[in-house]
């Protein structure tokens, strides 16, 4: 049974009621099928009403759902012949970022993504999906390798942010992220980034200087977490819900501002309810992007990326 989110509670309660009535009907000689039918219609309407009108804060909750599919889940469902490649060749192997080679519909690709855990043990191993510099340097190594062999690069973004720790600072967290930004800008192969969960600030952007940026419908992408924003702006982290609204961090808002290229629709209630169906729609988005970007040569791809980021910003002159 997956974790119930607060905004879904009315649906869960109604569903429980229906099950209760069905059991009662089965065990007693009373026919309640009329009542059950009415309740089922009500459930359908309620689901529609709640899931079609999700607030930014509801989406944040879905994006953080512990059972939400991760990079490795999607890799297993979307690609064939995946081989994970480890290490940055300088310091270590960061389990908060995974990457490797695989094929997508018989085209060789490189895939890289943030990787969080689904339980405490795995989260400890993967540092809750918050990379150290060696994670970003591994990602860059794999990107340069992809460029050498002319493979498209697919990045999955899913992190609260780069890890704020002592060792991370000592080894140059800033430089590792900054280096990825300038190096990704110059890659002569197609780069597609897909935000699948939380896109937290510079730690997310370090896998995000792409030709196409897609976002799952309930994922978020922001300069700071809603809690952090609430602390800085109003000195009260409990106002995170208001901050989620004000900071415009959801896929529809980012599409409206022209920062992302497309929204990948999610299965009703969130990707964790049917990860296979979700993988299919992600696959469609990858195929469309690869087809479109396949028409550009190396210089064309670099220029395309330049033009894409060059025009982001709101000001007057």
């Amino acid at each position, binding site marked *: 049974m997956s974790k119930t989110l607060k905004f879904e509670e009315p649906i869960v309660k109604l569903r429980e009621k229906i099950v209760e009535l069905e059991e009662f009907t089965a065990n007693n000689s009373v026919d309640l099928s009329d009542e059950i039918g009415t309740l089922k219609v009500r459930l359908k309407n309620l689901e529609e009403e709640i899931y079609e009108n999700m607030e930014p804060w509801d989406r944040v909750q879905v994006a953080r759902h512990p059972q939400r599919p991760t990079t490795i889940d999607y890799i297993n469902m979307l690609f064939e012949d995946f081989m994970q490649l480890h290490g940055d060749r300088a310091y270590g192997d960061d389990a908060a970022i995974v990457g490797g080679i695989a094929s997508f519909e018989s085209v060789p690709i490189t895939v890289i993504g943030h990787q969080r855990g689904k339980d405490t043990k795995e989260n400890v191993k993967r540092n809750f999906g918050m990379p150290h510099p060696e994670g970003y340097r591994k990602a860059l190594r794999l990107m340069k390798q992809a460029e050498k062999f002319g493979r498209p690069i697919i990045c999955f973004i899913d992190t609260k942010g780069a890890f704020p720790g002592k060792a991370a600072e000592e080894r140059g*967290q*800033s430089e590792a992220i900054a280096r990825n930004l*300038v190096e990704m800008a110059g890659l002569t192969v197609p780069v597609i980034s897909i935000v699948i969960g939380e896109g937290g*600030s510079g730690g997310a952007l370090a896998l995000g200087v792409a030709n196409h940026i897609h976002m799952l419908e309930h994922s978020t992408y922001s300069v700071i977490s809603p809690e952090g924003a609430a602390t800085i702006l109003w000195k009260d982290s409990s106002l995170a819900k208001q901050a989620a609204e004000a900071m415009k961090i959801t896929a529809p808002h980012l599409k409206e501002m022209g920062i992302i290229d497309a929204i990948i629709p999610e299965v009703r209630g969130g990707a964790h309810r049917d990860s296979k169906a979700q993988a299919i729609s992600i696959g469609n988005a990858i195929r469309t992007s690869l087809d479109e970007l396949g028409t550009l040569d190396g210089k064309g791809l670099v220029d395309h990326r330049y033009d894409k980021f060059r025009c982001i910003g709101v000001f007057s002159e």
Partner: protein
Amino acid sequence: MIRDLFMKNRKKHMTTIPSVDAKNDVPEGIMTKCSECKNIILTKDLIKLMKVCPKCDHHFKMTAAERVACLFDEETFKSIDDHLKTENPLNFPAYTEKVESDARKTGLNEAVLTGTGKIDGVEIAVAIMDAHFRMGSMGSVVGEKITRAIEKATALGIPMIIFSASGGARMQEGVLSLMQMAKTSVALTRHGSEGLLYISVMTYPTTGGVSASFASVGDINIAEPKALIGFAGRRVIEQTVREKLPEDFQTAEFLLDHGQLDAVVHRADMKETLSKIVRLHVKGAN
């Protein structure tokens, strides 16, 4: 008369009490106290010393204009893009007022001054961030001005120097601020692919999104002594790792020790150092 001298309240008679007008005539901040060693110095002497404390070498924060004055050959600096104006894309309450008030205070349109000028006769493009303007934070206009300055350097085929002084991305413009990191990066990549020189000079403070983008990827990275440089804030890290961090954590010297910087350069030597680096990279400048 003589008796007056021994009167209890003789002070009243003998001292001059300045009138209100006279009080206002005295220029404010005639003296400056060093925040590090508490040494008190005449402000005009401090400015002559490029705002470095003569007793303890503490580098005070500089305004963008002060940097221009001690960096470029006289009357060679020309600013660009002073007309760009910040908007309030997320409709944050009081954001526009805060930006306007800082603009009045600093005489800048935003937290960075950009343009071209000559160092010992060699033309360079420059972006100088000013931490007196919204903590030097980077929103759309800061990102745009820096990008245009880099593009100008690329078009003219000249070196680019960026003086960073920033708390990071500007919260009030949300993800638009984050994307300025990418925007400045694509411009730097194009500048670099022409074989052109980019020097990053990190000053107090260079943190967050600015440290994690253009500030860290100079062909040569230098910093002023004791400058605070880092990705995450000290308090955030202390809360995460639950240990006390060393005193010099995230200082320029700490970064030099950890292989993150090419050099720490005293402000008095900055012009000469930059001039030397530029001369070694620009053909015909020797």
